[in-house]
């Protein structure tokens, strides 16, 4: 039963949507061949933040080019001159954004982090791409803050990422046979208790994506993480991979020392290995 309580709200909201809808968000260029690109300032916070959502998109990868891309959300408490990573290795490979032809494609990778960030901090972004040409990306940050009832909103202070391997790749999840579950793959072991979790996926190395759909499950000890929804990935031969994730913050209670896992289920004969990274709010 739901308790009868006073309503809850965030008093402040801010974003980098920008002055007009034709050029929404902030552009940045990912580095090439796994190298980091240049940091770009996104916004300076004018209020304390207790929830941050991130949307990232790009032009789709040309056929024959690996489309992997990992982005870091950066923070500088002093205003944007000395960046450190706040959220590392958000996988946004093969994402489409902006209007392309007759289809209005917006950001296709999104995450929500119940995270405290102090007012006055600057937020930025940088990325590393797996391709040899630096492709333009866009990021949209939305920040909610100052909950009317602080005792009704859990948020952490930093984010731990598991599953990064090298370059612009995460841990590749073993592909199961058509219409069967793949084996559980260890993504990494937590070093602190997580109160919320977000997941990143992208096609691993494929430079010519097949059309298909896959489900990614998350677990511990080869058992599904209870209460945690799976993530669906749709890939297409036009080299894009759309995600159907529950972006709403996925609160959890994962203890320190837990080895988190993922497995893949696919319904198509085509083989699309998927990188998985997990982001835990501490």
């Amino acid at each position, binding site marked *: 039963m739901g308790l009868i309580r006073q309503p809850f709200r965030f008093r402040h909201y801010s974003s980098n949507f920008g002055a007009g809808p034709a050029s929404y968000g902030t552009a940045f260029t990912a580095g090439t061949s796994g190298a980091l690109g240049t940091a770009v300032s996104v916004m300076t916070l004018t209020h304390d933040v207790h929830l941050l959502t991130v949307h990232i998109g790009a032009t789709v990868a040309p056929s024959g080019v690996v489309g992997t891309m990992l982005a870091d959300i950066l923070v500088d408490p002093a205003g944007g001159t000395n960046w450190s990573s706040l959220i590392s290795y958000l996988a946004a490979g093969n994402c489409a954004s902006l209007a392309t032809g007759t289809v209005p494609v917006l950001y296709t990778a999104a995450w929500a982090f119940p995270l405290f960030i102090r007012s006055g901090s600057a937020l930025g972004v940088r990325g590393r791409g797996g391709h040899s040409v630096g492709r333009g990306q866009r990021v949209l940050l939305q920040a909610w803050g100052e909950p009317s009832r602080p005792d009704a909103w859990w948020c952490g202070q930093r984010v731990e990422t598991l599953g990064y391997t090298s370059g612009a790749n995460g841990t590749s999840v073993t592909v199961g046979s058509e219409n069967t579950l793949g084996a559980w793959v260890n993504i990494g072991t937590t070093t602190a208790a997580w109160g919320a979790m977000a997941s990143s996926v992208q096609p691993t190395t494929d430079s010519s994506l097949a059309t298909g759909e896959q489900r990614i499950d998350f677990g511990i000890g080869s058992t599904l993480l209870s209460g945690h*929804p799976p993530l669906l990935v749709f890939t297409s031969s*036009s080299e894009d991979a759309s995600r159907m994730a529950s972006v709403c913050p996925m609160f959890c209670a994962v203890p320190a020392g837990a080895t988190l896992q993922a497995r893949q289920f696919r319904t198509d004969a085509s083989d699309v290995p998927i990188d998985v990274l997990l982001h835990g709010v501490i």
Partner: protein
Amino acid sequence: MALVLPTFRFARFVDNVTTVAAVAQVNDTGTQSNSASNPHVDTTPVTLLSALAFDVHLLEVAFHQEGGTVDCNGLVDILVDPAGGTSWSELISDIALSYHPYATTSSGLTYWLRFPLFIRAGTSLGFRHRAADSLLTIYVVARCHGEPSRPELWWCGQKIETLGANPSTSKGTNVTPGNSNAWGSWTNIGASTRRYGALALGINGTDASTLNTQYFFQIGAGDVQLPGTPQYMVAAATASLMQYITPAVPVWCDEPSGTTFQVRGMCAGTAEIFNFTLHGVY
């Protein structure tokens, strides 16, 4: 500053996509509606989830459909039957929807509404819709989260009031966005009769075609954006497709009974009329 609180999580999750053995095929993710025989007439109810196995405290719904040359605007009722799916009543009335493309068109599902709402275990969820054209069928995705580990941390309501719907046209209330990156006037959607603890915005278009451009929208009262409420974005294309950036979290609020809610919009180019419904959780 954030308080140091114990972590919070939902213990249970279920949806109408991944409960089946296989991942749903790309074009038919979710549950398909019956076709309407005539415009502006409710379809026969279809079950989304039968006899929920646990109490629900957060309901997320997403819609998609095929764009085309007909007027693809409509209104959806989310239905509930405490007894298991034989005698439906409206849980959420007349949610506006429009040209939300199939999940395969590079974007995944982008039109989400999130309701912090208590629904008792054993209840069945269903839906029906009415449309401006009899050819329209839609797909609905429903995701239920329940059994919060700390109920005192999660505000949820028990009912929903809908403002702005016009069942005779299968649309919401007209709002004309401003042209060329200028905000249009605030337009009244309706006055609440309850104190709202959360809001959701339903969006549809006007006719059988759309112009290729982008929009921002905001929710307000008294000609001012409601504090803490996010900005919405719509990208439209001439193929009668629209995609969205909707808030990743429930839009919690604390608005008294008698509040007249408003919407305003901004277009990157030449604006078309949009229609809105507003759904208040109490």
